């Protein structure tokens, strides 16, 4: 579905190499988590898929076709994009925000209205919110609208850049698992950037670990937990396990005392 072939990208006139000769494929309906520290190049990789960033070398393809051969904004209308900043348009109502890509694509008014209502249900917000302005919503509600907006034009690919990073832990967990259900029920292909390994482990089918612009590990979560030579990756994957173990022990103590 998505393919990187020897892709490199540098910033500041070549002084900072953000992505170094990266190649990988993402299968249809996969949920891939790109994990790494800030500055590792994971966001750059994500944004090259919908051409918010152009590669210096190599080819990025979507659906077997090089993205370079497509018109940038037309490509982006076919791909859902959700990011940490959310970026709801503050002067447009919730309904207008959700319906923006269909409007750009020239859908009929009635079709847009129907789709907007369908989506607000899907992200589990009351329909009365459609007429509200973004500023009247909480952070979690805003990102639900953000997800609905990304899904509006029925994309088959969703790109998510730390989508729930700014939310409180409970909301974050709820939204994460709800999105995972949408991913499955709608048959989406999702690439999600996160620095939170726990989130990657809980949501992703496959985790790609990026460091200094290169892929250092790539596999299913359980594979990365067990067989890995790279000390850094082990340390990274160790954290959720240690956390999980600590929680389990705490629970057992509670049970033993009780």
């Amino acid at each position, binding site marked *: 579905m998505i393919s990187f072939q020897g892709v490199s990208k540098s910033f500041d006139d070549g002084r900072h190499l953000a992505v170094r000769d990266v190649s990988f494929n993402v299968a249809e309906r996969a949920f891939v988590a790109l994990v790494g520290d800030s500055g590792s190049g994971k966001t750059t990789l994500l944004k090259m898929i919908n051409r918010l960033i152009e590669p210096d070398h190599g080819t990025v393809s979507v659906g077997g076709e090089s993205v370079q051969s497509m018109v940038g*904004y037309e490509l*982006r*209308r076919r791909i859902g*994009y959700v990011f940490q900043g959310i*970026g709801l348009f*503050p002067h447009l109502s919730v309904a207008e925000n959700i319906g923006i890509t269909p409007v*750009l694509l020239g859908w009929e008014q009635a079709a847009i209205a129907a789709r907007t209502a369908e989506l607000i249900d899907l992200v589990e917000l009351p329909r009365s919110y459609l007429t509200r*302005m973004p500023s009247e919503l909480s952070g979690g509600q805003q990102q639900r609208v953000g997800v609905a907006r990304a899904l509006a034009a029925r994309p088959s690919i969703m790109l998510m850049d730390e989508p729930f990073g700014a939310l409180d832990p409970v909301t974050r967990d709820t939204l994460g698992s709800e999105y995972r259900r949408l991913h499955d029920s709608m048959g989406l292909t999702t690439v999600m950037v996160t620095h939170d390994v726990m989130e990657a482990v809980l949501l992703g089918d496959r985790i790609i670990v990026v460091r200094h612009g290169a892929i250092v590990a790539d596999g299913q979560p359980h594979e990365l937990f067990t067989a890995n030579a790279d000390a850094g990756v082990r340390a990274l994957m160790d954290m959720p396990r240690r956390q999980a173990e600590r929680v389990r022990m705490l629970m057992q103590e509670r049970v033993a005392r009780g």
Partner: protein
Amino acid sequence: MDERFAAAARLLPDYLGQHVLLSAASLALGFLVSLPLVIVASRNARIRWPVLGFASVVQTVPSLALLALFYPLLLAVSAGWKHLFGHGFSALGFLPSLLALTLYSMLPILRNGVTGLINVDRAVIEAARGVGMTNRQRLLRIELPLAAPVIMAGVRTAAVWVIGGATLSTPVGQTSLGNYIFSGLQVEDWVSVLFGCLAAVALAISVDQLLGLVEAGVARRRPRLAWLGLSALFVGVAAAGVSELAAAGPPAYVIGAKNFAEQYILAALMTDRIRKEDSAATTRADLGSVIAFRALASNGIDAYVDYSGTIWSTVMKRHDSLPRKQMLQEMTTQLRKDHGVVLLGALGFENAYALAMRRDTAQSLGIRTIADLAQHAPELRIGGDFEFFARPEWAALRARYGLHFHEQRQFQPTFLYKAVASKEVDVVSAASSDGRIRAYDLVVLEDPQQVIPPYDAIVLISPARASDAVLRRALEPLLGAIPLDLMRQANYMVDRDTERVTPHQAAVWLEDAIHLN
């Protein structure tokens, strides 16, 4: 009610109407020119600084100077245009005012516009790209609506500046609320000055409030509020336009006047005479000295009174002196030949530049003539109007009599006489027909070497009206009919400190006194 107040109120529809039209046109043009610049400058930092820098520099030019500079510029452009297309356009009045005020309005719009656009939340910009907007869609659907309140705040500032600045368009021949202020200042009619100030302030406040309504409507996403403000503004401009159109009627005779009492009175007198011939006539007052002749030569005005010495030196660039009769003859031929301007004739009195002193100072120093003055000049201070020290007469006086003063100061004509009366200066440049010479008990010093050429008041007619029968019928009876003492009295009626009358009232009195009523 005070006659001066009533007179000011009668002029309000015309002055206010023209002021509104000029301000609205400048603001609209400024907005239309600025908006594309704002968009380009907000996207490209290399263009941003030159654009904002230029606008800031324009802002530091004093507004009156900016207006004054457009006149010679347009004159040159008009000449080139005439050369290319056969007919020129008027470099006076509306056009230079419009251009200067447009430039003036641009800085706040540019600065706010650029600030508004570059400060749109980066996350929103990224989202706009992410949902698949083209650059144009992003600008129109996201960036401009979000920056609109900031841009509107800039438009509001610009509107207030333009309405204030438009009062300065009077000296370049554009009627505005400034006419009250400039004429009032010349004849010390403070009612008129105050009236003009208050009218301009009231207009600025109303427009600011209405634009504030638009700004609030845009900022709070309440389109009806914005439309309400816009419609009210539109109705105001339309009303001004309609009232100007209605007042326009058949093309009227336009009588010019420079910026002092005698000119206002004579213009009012000439206008009255034309109206008695059942023709429409208006005056265009407060023209700069040289601007008046240029306006006449380019048919911007139809007639006005100038002084032979002024024309001789500033228009014909002659520095020799001829006997009065010969000089007038030569001037008549030359003006007709070079400019197509008709010198109809002299009114009968002279308004020459003269040097005047307080009688007591002159007597105690034993000064009667300019030659006597030269002996004492190094200890004395001289005051002149804005024009005097730049004139060839002054250069000639200095050269011929060897005049060197201790100090030299410039005054607005109104304050010149007060300055000598209160001994702030010892000698002033005076106009020989000025009523205040007698009122302040000044003596005019003799010019034994006849350095100062004759300054007969003469009626000049524009090329377009050269053989206009109405104008001739109306103005010919004035020739040779106004003696110096009557003119001085009329001037004094307008210039004196108490029981002052309007120039129009003085004109009626003068017309009576010379038995034309």
